[in-house]
Structures are given as C-alpha cells and as structure tokens.
C-alpha cells in the first residue's frame, strides 16, 4: 500500500486542496438502497419521511497550483473514474486544505 496518509510537504509552488465530491444517482434512476432505508425509517415510526436517496461523498486531498487547477483535475477524475455518467451525476467543491 502507498503512504497516502502521511502527506509529504507540498511540492514547489503547490498548495494542498481538499475536493469534496457528491456523486448522486440521476433523477429517475432507481435507488433500491434509498427506498429500503426509507421504508425502514417509516417502520421505525418516522412517518414524516417522504423519500431517501443515497449517494457517495468523496473527500479527495490533492496538490495543485491553484484552486482552478485543482477543480479541473477533480472534474477529470470524476469523468474518468469517480462517477458513472450513465446513471450518476456529480458536484465538485474545492477548498484549501
């Protein structure tokens, strides 16, 4: 395994950013997990619950020269790996770490 957890100091002119990515199912795509959780909340007596949708929340720590560069990289990662465009959509936020 790689030493992901022990961040080396940021490189030359590089800053550390934290990307927060929400990956959610597109509307209309079935969410069996969310539906099952909703039903179980109702069974527990939370009858005010109308709907539950469950998505992923990814926190990505990365180095970049600036916020825009970090966002562009995250955008690329989402398209390539982190989300599946056929059924999912994503939103990216970037903050300095």
């Amino acid at each position, binding site marked *: 395994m790689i030493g992901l957890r022990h961040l080396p100091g940021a490189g030359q002119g590089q800053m550390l950013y934290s990307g927060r990515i929400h990956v959610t*199912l*597109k509307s*209309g*795509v*079935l*969410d*069996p997990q969310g539906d*099952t959780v909703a*039903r179980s909340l109702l069974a527990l007596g939370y009858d005010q619950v109308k709907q539950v949708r469950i998505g992923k929340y990814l926190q990505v720590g990365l180095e970049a020269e600036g916020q825009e560069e970090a966002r562009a990289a995250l955008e690329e990662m989402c398209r390539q790996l982190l989300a*599946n465009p*056929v*059924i999912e959509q994503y939103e990216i936020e970037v903050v300095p770490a």
Partner: protein
Amino acid sequence: MSDRPWEEVGLTETEYEQITEILGRRPNELELGMFGVMWSEHCSYKSSRPVLRLFPYEAPWVLQGPGENAGVIAIGDGRAVVFKMESHNHPSAIEPFQGAATGVGGIVRDIFAMGARPIALLDSLRFGSLEDPRVRYLFSGVVGGISWYGNCIGVPTVGGEIYFDTAYATNPLVNVMCVGLLSEDKTARAVASGPGNKVMLVGARTGRDGIHGASFASEELGEDSLRRRPAVQVGDPFKEKLLIEACLELVDRGCLVGLQDLGAAGITSAASEMAGRAGTGMEIDVTLVPRREEGMTPYEVMISESQERMLAVPQPGREEEVAEILAKWDLEAAVIGQVTSDGMFRVRDAGRVVAEVPVEALAACPVIPREKARPAYLEEQATGAEEVPEPDDYGVALLNLLSSPTIAGKAWVWRQYDHMVQINTAVRPGAADAAVLRLKGSRQGLALTTDGNGRYTYLDPYTGGAIAVAEAARNLACCGARPLGVTDCLNFGHPGRPEIFWQFEEAVRGMAEACRALGVPVVSGNVSFYNESSGEAVYPTPVVGMVGLVEDMERPCTMAFTNDGDLVVLLGENTGELGGSEYLWLAAGRPGARPPRVDLAREKALVEVLVQAVGTGLLTAAHDCAEGGLAVALAECCLAGGRGARVKVTSSGSLAALLFGEGQGRAVVSLPEANWPRLEELCQGQGLSVQVLGRVGGGALEIKAGDRVLVQVPVEELRTRWEGAIPCLMS
C-alpha cells in the same frame, strides 16, 4: 405521427403495412409502439427462427422444450431440472456493473417463473485484451455486478468460462445461465387461462427505466430515445430475493393459474405471451400499474423494462391469499387487469380503450428471409499454409500459455462469487471441467458447464458450433455425468449482413448435428445479434450450456492427480492440429487456417468411455484437452492435485503441435495401474484409441519426446504463472 412512423419503433415499412393489414386500419401510436417491441429481433426471433428449427428438441426426458420461460428435463424421483442461458451484452458494454447484474436478475426470473428454485448460476464471458484499461474496467465491472447480484440473492455461481481476445474489445459478451430444481407436480406455467381471472403485477414499481431495451439491442439510440431515459437499469437484488421466495410460496400453495417474468418489452410482452399461450385475451388498465415516477404515458408503462417484476394470474377466489403472501414478503402487488375470452389485447387508460390488437398479431411477426454468403476471409485463411513455429524452449512456451489470461487460473473471478451457498457444491470452480452439485436426499448429482470457442467458430462456423457442444459433453463426462440437455446463447453480428447470417446458420447446423450425434436435446436458448461496433463484428460465438446427471455421487472425479504412481493415460488420438490454438495465437499472432477437426462418432465414444469409467470408479482424475492442448491439460491436472507427472509423447511430426495442438476428442485421465486392463477393454469396446503416457509423481511436470526432455518445470513454478497472471494484470 411522422410520415414514416415505423422508423421510430425500429420496424420496416413492409412490417408496418403488415400490421395495418392485420388490424384492418393504421395502428395508433401506442399500438405501433407495442408492435415495435414485440416485433423486434430480440422478442420475435424474426431472423433466427427458421434456423433454430435445425436443433433437435425431443427426448423422452424432456418435459418442456423451448417456448416457455425455460426448458425442463426430468431426472427421476419426480424431480426436474430447469435451465436457460441469456445474454446481456449491450447493457454490460455501457454500464458493466449494473448491466451484468440485471442480466443475472433477468435469467433468474425465467427460472423461478417456472416454479423452480434457482440453485446455480454460470457465467460465460468474453472480453478484449486485459492490456487495455477500458477492458479491465469492463471486466472488473461485469464480475463485480454478477457477484453483487448473485451473492445477494443466495444463488451460487458455480462455473463459467472467460476468453480474452481483441475481437471482443468494445463489445464484450456477458452470457449467464441459471439452473433450477423443481418437483414435477409443482410446475408453474406462463399461461393466462380462465376468462375473468385477475391479472396481478408483483414486485417493483414501474419506472421509465429500460424503455426500448428490446430494441436497444438492435439499434443506436437516437436523441429522441435518449430523452426518454437511459436504457441501462439499476438492479435490486434484495427485491429479487423476496420475489423468489414469494413466488415459490405461491406456486407451492397452488394459488396460481399462471406466472410470468417481465423482461424485454415489459408488460406488453409478458401479458400478451401469457394470453397467447392460453389462447385467451387480456385487458390491462395502465392507471392501475403502480408507478415510480409521475407523468408516465400509457406507452411508457406498457413497454417499461423496470426490473424485479412478475405477472401473476391467481386462481379465482384466491386473490386475497396471494396478496397476503406477497405482503408477508414486503412486496407490493396490484391487480392491473383481467383475462378475457375474445383474443384481443386491450389497453385501457382510466377505462378508456387506448389500444386494441389481436393477441396473436403481436406474436405473429413475419420471418425476415436473410441472405447468406460465405465470407471472403475464409478463402484467404484457407490458402495460407499452416506453417508451425516451434518454440526455442517448450517449457517456456508452456509457462507462457499458462499465463495467457484465457488459460490462466480464474480464481480472481470466482472467489468474488459465493459458489457455496445452498451447500450443494460438491465440485467447485477450478476443480474439474464442470461444476457438480449434489441433490439433497438423493445419490444423484448434477454436472453443469458452459463452453464455446469463438476463434474456432470464426475459422469454421460449422466446426466451431459442433465443438462447442462436443466440449461441453466432454466436460460433463469427465465428471462422470451423462449429458441430458443443452441451453445456448448465440452471439453474432448484424443478421442483415449475408456473411454473418451464413456464419450463424453454419454454427447452428454444427451444433445441431453434434446434439443429435450425442443424443442431447436443446431445451432453451437465446439469440443475441448486433454484437458489433463500427462495423466490426465479434467472433461468431455460440455458447453452449449443458446439464448432465451423475448417477452416484459416492464416486467423485475431478481433474486433480491424487496418487503418486497412478498411470497417466490419453483417451483419444493426439492429432497434432495447431489451427485455432492459443499457442498459434501467442506465437504467431494469427488464428490459423482452420480449427481442429471434429469427429462426432469419436466424441460420442469418448463420452461413453468417460461416463462408464468414472461411474465404475476406475479413474482417479479426468480432464479434457481444450485450450492449450495436451501439455496444458497435464499441467492443470498437476496444479489441481499439487503433484507432478512424468510423461512421454511420440516424437514424430511437429512437437509443438503434439504438445499444444487443440485436437478434439481427447481427455487425460489417471488411474491405479490395477484398473488399466478394464479401461483398455472399455476403450476397445467403444473403438476409442488409448495410450499410456506415463505416471503421476514427483514435484515437476516432465514431458519427453523419445529421450529428449521437452518440459521439466516444477509444479510450483507452473502455479506461480498460472495463478498470478490475471491478478497481476488487474492490480
């Protein structure tokens, strides 16, 4: 409607005119949409139907051939086995995880729709080269999806096969077979008989997902259909598990007149087929269908392919009981219509009739006569001389074959599958040529396998088709099982191309002839055309799923060499044919001129010998020679048993061809020396040639030709290469 309305639903102008003639008027938009899905290739088999008639369907033990949701064969004691295979190629190419998962869900519904408990899954997969990152993504997604769905519903995935070849780079093949067990007196039928009976939709709510899935297999998605939603669906294996239990309880209690799963073309197909089989009519009110989304049109409701739904016709007066059982399993059910007597399929929207067509018409899609032409490439191949490169080092060549992903160990795949749940798996993945399940409370067992080499079929479709059947039978026989029935999945390119259709017919002819020769009927199957991208078709790939019966589970036989000193024997002739072999592909980068020949009488003799030899306990191991030839077969027996062997081959002709040629009709077996006379006698009786190659023992596989040592490799080195290949490519 546009002035070419048939185009929107994927039909031709001629077909549109035929519909108009049947109805005596133009169909309205909904009616046309229903015809569009029902007359799609996927639902109507309009290209393949005449060709499929070539298969033999009859045998005394066949209880149900093609036509119902799955085929059924009797195995004695009032028990029957239900099985079918299906493809989910296109959805898996787009969304491998969910595509493969919903493929599992679909085929499993076919099985329990018959009232059978699903007891096993097998997956037959084809991908491009694992060097390609996109292929790795597809491969791990497909395996992950099968694992997720199959494991969750508690049906073990006990076998399958995987080939890697650039021919499948953009169009992977994902074929899944499901096997179920039922007692003959508890069979469900997919019929809607009894006018006045209620029709219930059970399970998941209906959404817009998978709209046009049936035609998705045959066309590009236009902008218009994209607007209507992705054709790929998300599976809910938890709901499927509940559906299995609930439906089996309904069948067990005898509450139902008919039961049918919803697959391609959704309610339209399920309801019209149920009525068609019973010769009745059907009336559905779309407003009664529980929806997942608002604002769905009648058209969307009627052709939605939302997963995990079943259509049930309760016995009159037992609707309450049905509803109670479903409620017990937390499943929703709604009465959405009723059986009628007038032979019409009528759709209502809040009472108002919005479509009305004869049930028969929906099923009466006329056959499209397809042109056939022998492809030019076959001539070109055939003229190329079969020159055979000999390797510098036969041991290295063997190791390279063992680490070729097609031949390499597949544990990376099957350890992701729960292959033990239901505690019947007596012979597990990787242990033998077929999986063997014990049948609780009986001495009998079931052996299961899938086979089909696309490269052979590409080189000679007739021979490739015949070999697929022969290999499957051989695999079962190596486990001591007598082959009883075949299901198949025929994966080909665009049927409108004469070369493709020629391949298709030839392959089916070969399969059919092999089935006849071996006495195995076809009881179910599936055709998947349009497996191509940018005009390049995949290898024509018929996949055979075969079920066999082991009479006595007290005498198990796997491929593992287990006793030092046992004789190693080759059944059949070492013909030294390198065409179509993995060796030739690796060494020369070409498929070769022609595949190995197939002699069906010899195959039959081999199966007989194996079944009897295993059945009488003569053998300690049996393994057929397939990809990689004799040397790989020997290596696999050594690997499975964790011990070596010393063997000799005759030293004439090409040694590479003797070691790595993929000649058919052969198996490697081991046995105690004392049993040799009986085996020899058996072989003579069947006219099968047999020769002693050497003995089990030592820590290495040693292969000699005369006095020359060709291969001398420690078993642990074989193991490192064979087990390490796929994990290494995937990490």
